[in-house]
């Protein structure tokens, strides 16, 4: 099994700024809401961390690892548009509020669910999640975003019958 390399951390703040600018018409409204403080909408970093912690109650991960994961995810995201980011950030604080989910337009709630799934996939595959949290041990270590080209054959899930045969023979 190849060791998964650690990826360089990204610059979350720059990404945030760029995408908010891309957001165009939404910027003015966002700015108005922003005056109210961060409880009205999340920064991308807070949104990503919130998604992970909401989905994994009791998660035990170092601050450094979480910060690195959040930065990596944001830096690697090249296809979430500026307007989508605005919607995600606005919805983030209320994501688990059923009334809000029911009221949100379908495409927005779908987008949020898709984004949550994407973040969770990155976390599960980029850490020792399947050896720890999935087995009941809350202490998780983040290694770096999963990349088959940087670390092929590192998917923790496949099982190989010839290895089973070798175990039986030995």
């Amino acid at each position, binding site marked *: 099994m190849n060791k998964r390399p650690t990826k360089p951390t990204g610059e979350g703040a720059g990404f945030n700024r760029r995408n908010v600018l891309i957001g165009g018409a939404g910027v003015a409204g966002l700015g108005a809401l922003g005056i109210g403080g961060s409880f009205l909408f999340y920064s991308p970093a807070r949104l990503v961390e919130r998604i992970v912690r909401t989905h994994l109650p009791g998660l035990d991960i170092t601050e450094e690892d979480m910060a690195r994961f959040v930065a990596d995810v944001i830096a690697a995201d090249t296809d979430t548009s500026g307007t989508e980011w605005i919607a995600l950030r606005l919805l983030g604080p209320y994501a688990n509020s059923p009334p809000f989910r029911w009221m949100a337009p379908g495409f927005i709630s779908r987008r949020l669910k898709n984004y949550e799934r994407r973040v969770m996939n990155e976390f599960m595959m980029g850490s020792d999640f399947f050896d720890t949290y999935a087995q009941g041990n809350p202490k998780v270590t983040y290694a770096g975003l999963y990349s*088959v080209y940087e670390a092929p054959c590192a998917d923790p899930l*496949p099982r190989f019958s010839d290895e089973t045969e070798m175990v039986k023979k030995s």
Partner: protein
Amino acid sequence: MRVVEKAARSYDAAIIGSGFASTFFLYRYLKHAPPNARVLVLERGKWHTHADQIEMGHPSEIHESTTWVDKGPKQNLRWKFTIGFGGGSNCWWGNAVRLHPSDFKLKTKYGVGLDWPIDYDDIEPYYCEAEEVMQLSGPRERMLWPRSRPFPQPPHTLPLADRLLKEAYPEHHFAAATARPSRDTATRPKCCSNGVCHLCPIDSKFSILNSFMEPYEDARVEILLTAEARAIDVQGGQARGVMFRRNGQEYEVSADLVVLGANALFNPVIMQRSGLDHPLLGRRLHGSYSEYGEALLDGVDNFQGSSIICGMNYAKYDGDFRREHPSVLLETWNRGALRAEHGKWRQVVPFTLKLEDLPQDRSHVRLAHPDDDLPEVLYDELSPYTAKAVNRALQFAEEILSPLPVEGLRWLPSPDTIGGPHIYGTTMMGTDPATSILDANQIHHQVRNLVVVGSGSFPAGSQSNPTLTICAVAMKAADKIGAPA
């Protein structure tokens, strides 16, 4: 290996292309050719090693989408092939299934589509040979059609969802037949389910570059790279040679035998430039219909398999229903997005549902003008036979997956639903020269020293992946050409 910078004046055979069809033809042709034979292989692209391909992030520096023009109103065709040495063997995913015997006799058995001029039995020995060359992994148990040899490699490990499907469909659900090896071969490591087979990070799937250079290492063979075949020189009903373009210059080489193995888009336009007119040349272009989905499971952790496309379900593949609706093949995947629901992370089965399509005269590839470089393609709708079944695709998937504890099923975004990844029908085989371009051995009906290989010769493409059949039929053609008169 003789990669030449300049072709000689004449050869016994000129072979256009170096993908599956051309290479397997060459392999068998050399077994019949005399020791002093000279063969020239003209390849349009460059020779990119696996490391080059990884570095480029694509198997070729020429992106295939720039080599033809989609004239359909939706411009939604996403065909993938490789312009480069080894052709499609670089970018394929390694699915190597045989066609079902009924696929060859659709018209006779079910009154739809067209019959092939050959039977399953005609190419069964060639299927075995191609499977041996590729060191295929496949099921040990009896499948739906006869086999005279077992698969060279044992099957991949099935994930749990596939094991449940196997229990429910003992005679219709199988481990995928694949050129992604389940064991290390002499030249390749076993597949470890990276899930990016179009550019395998560990060079595991069979490719001509990594496992089948034998025909090209033969001293009788010369390879000319970056040589784009433009036309065949046909005089008096005989192919005299090939006209090609290289580094902006036009050249011609003469040959006693010409084998056209570009692909199903380029073969017909090279023939069009050559004056080989026929009302059906380039027409009856078709593919298949593919829809990608996921079934959310309740209580079944999945993804323990050892290769990315792990199962093939034939429960709705063949039967009298084909009079009414197309054959259905469902492929299960060992990887897809994990779920974000607590404790259900792995409880999902990604799958592809594939429907066969039937050829229609309206769909075509052609050159608007003979001097044009880019073929124009029109294939914007499925045959009525297939189109009416698309609305039932979800029902088909639900029925096939019903033995599993499915709590939800949904389609995923599918960029290539119409057309699928495979191209058929543009240089069709048949028995009647009025309704086909090639005979049963892929030899041109009128120009008897011209062989046109590849899936363009398929009269009715199945939804099953065509590669193994491409190889088998090409080897049969070479044996026919090479056999003593």
